[in-house]
């Protein structure tokens, strides 16, 4: 399961036979989750090609940080699909077990080159870990 990005911040990917593993890194938990969301949506469209015109907000309660990662990504994916949006900017705030996040993007249009559809975040290879370089959040997403 080699990582494809060895940097200590930002996002990267790791291999999974059928789908794709996403990695988010940051100096704190919320930043790592934001990076994991960026990794997820970058599979669907080149972030630089997406305008941050529309805002989407999500909120959830989860005490288990690993399940919180899956929940965060799945809420973003579900809400983005429901509204026909592709996303590029992500912000997350945590207050104990309560998480509030927002994302910005735009509606899909023919000018955006399409990547592959990420349909959900799974619990496979789901891990949130802290190290000297910061926090790393990873899981396999289903495409």
């Amino acid at each position, binding site marked *: 399961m080699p990582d494809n990005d060895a940097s200590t911040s930002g996002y990267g990917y790791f291999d999974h036979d*059928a789908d794709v593993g996403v990695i988010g890194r940051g100096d704190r938990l919320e930043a790592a989750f934001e990076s994991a969301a960026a990794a997820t949506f970058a599979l669907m469209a080149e972030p630089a090609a997406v305008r941050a015109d529309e805002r989407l907000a999500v909120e959830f309660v989860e005490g288990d940080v690993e399940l919180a990662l*899956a929940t965060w990504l799945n809420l973003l994916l*579900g809400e983005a699909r*429901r509204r026909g949006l592709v996303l590029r900017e992500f912000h997350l705030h945590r207050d104990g077990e309560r998480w509030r996040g927002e994302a910005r993007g735009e509606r*899909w249009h023919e000018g955006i080159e*399409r990547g592959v*559809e990420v349909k959900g975040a*799974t*619990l496979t290879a789901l891990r949130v870990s802290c190290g000297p370089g910061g926090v790393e959040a990873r899981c396999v997403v289903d495409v």
Partner: protein
Amino acid sequence: MDTALLHPVDGYAFTLPPGAGESRAPIVLYGDRELIADMDDKVLEQILNVARLPGIVGAAMAMPDAHWGYGFPIGGVAAFDPENGGIVSAGGVGFDISCGIRCLRTSLHLADLAGHERELANSLFQHIPAGVGREGRIRLSLRELDAVLADGAHWAVRQGYGQAEDLAFIEDGGRAEGAQPERVSPVAKERQLGEMGTLGSGNHYLEVQWVDRIFDAEAARAFGIEQDMLLVSIHCGSRGLGHQIGTEFLLSLAKAAGRLGIALPDRELACAPILSPEGEQYLGAMRAGINCALANRQILTQLTRDVFARVLSGSRLETLFDVSHNTCKEESHEVAGQPRQLFVHRKGATRAFGPGHPALPERYRASGQPVIIGGSMGTGSYLLAGTVESEARAFSSASHGAGRQMSRHAALRRWQGRQVVDELAGAGIHIRTASMRGVAEEAPGAYKDVHHVAEATERAGLARRVAFLRPKVCVKG
């Protein structure tokens, strides 16, 4: 996978006996040593985890195309007895509930397509919505969607998508009984309102194929196919609705495991006893997801017919068969000489009822059920028929595809979409795609050798080869 760990049951089945003090069901990996050696170690780890789930009957099994999945390996099969604490697992069904393949038999042959390939490819791509973010031309209300979830392909036929004759050749007659649309969340339904009649992305495709080789002339006659005949295969599933159901139940069942008294060897195997409120809720929602997929493929069938009628007038397209490969089905199977009602999970595995099975339409009662092993867009696919012996070997299950041999990311590093499209065009295969990235990830070289998988499936006694189909036109999401 280190096959030195495994003990041969026969030439095409291997097992790993439990260690001292280890409590689990047996496992069986189907395939030859070479296929199994090429499988990721995770396949063994995952199938061992499945063998530890409550109420499992017989062995936890991996088909010859197995690869690392979620909880279950893709290509995983396991049956559970509700009367013996058996479970239903959201991870054992997978996210794309009832993902499957609809195979259409046309009245055309390869020669009829000559000179029309590009027009057909362009027209299919124009009329079959494919790719991330692309909605269909059908926009449903929540009330209409509930009717889809209750009635499956029957709903689609009532709306004018296809013919009543199609229904007999769809698994379960085109409708999963016991669907409970009310168990599907509003979010899942809202995700689907604009997605009926869409192909999706990833490994989903619509492919025009021709019969290149017939292995079993008698079964081919029963399937109504002959040398050089054009067929169409449509591979897709329950789209956003199925994924949302899978996601929601996976998380809720993972959290409920402790309360339900289930020690999960892997959280992705989130499950509930079949005879529990949680299990019944999941089954009701999952069956609604199956109906969504069956209706979706029925709509796509009609859209395909419309395109063929415009480009190749006078052509007829009949449903050869429609079979899913991400399901949990209640079925009767003989165990130790006794019939038992079991819940069979097939995660990336195809139901493969043998000759004489009462659930088969009369047309296939003697040949066995059509089984489809979808290959890559550059190599081809196999049509097989279920066997009698598959019942005892694998609860009547078989492979569902070639199976990946390379991750998507590795494929991206190796190929470019445009290069793949051009190379295949040079080989006479017309690719139309919404995503060049997707084409690179799905490059033929990223898949195992479909001939090897199909032959191993036959030699393992899971299904027997009927015909090999070569691609001519492929629409990728």
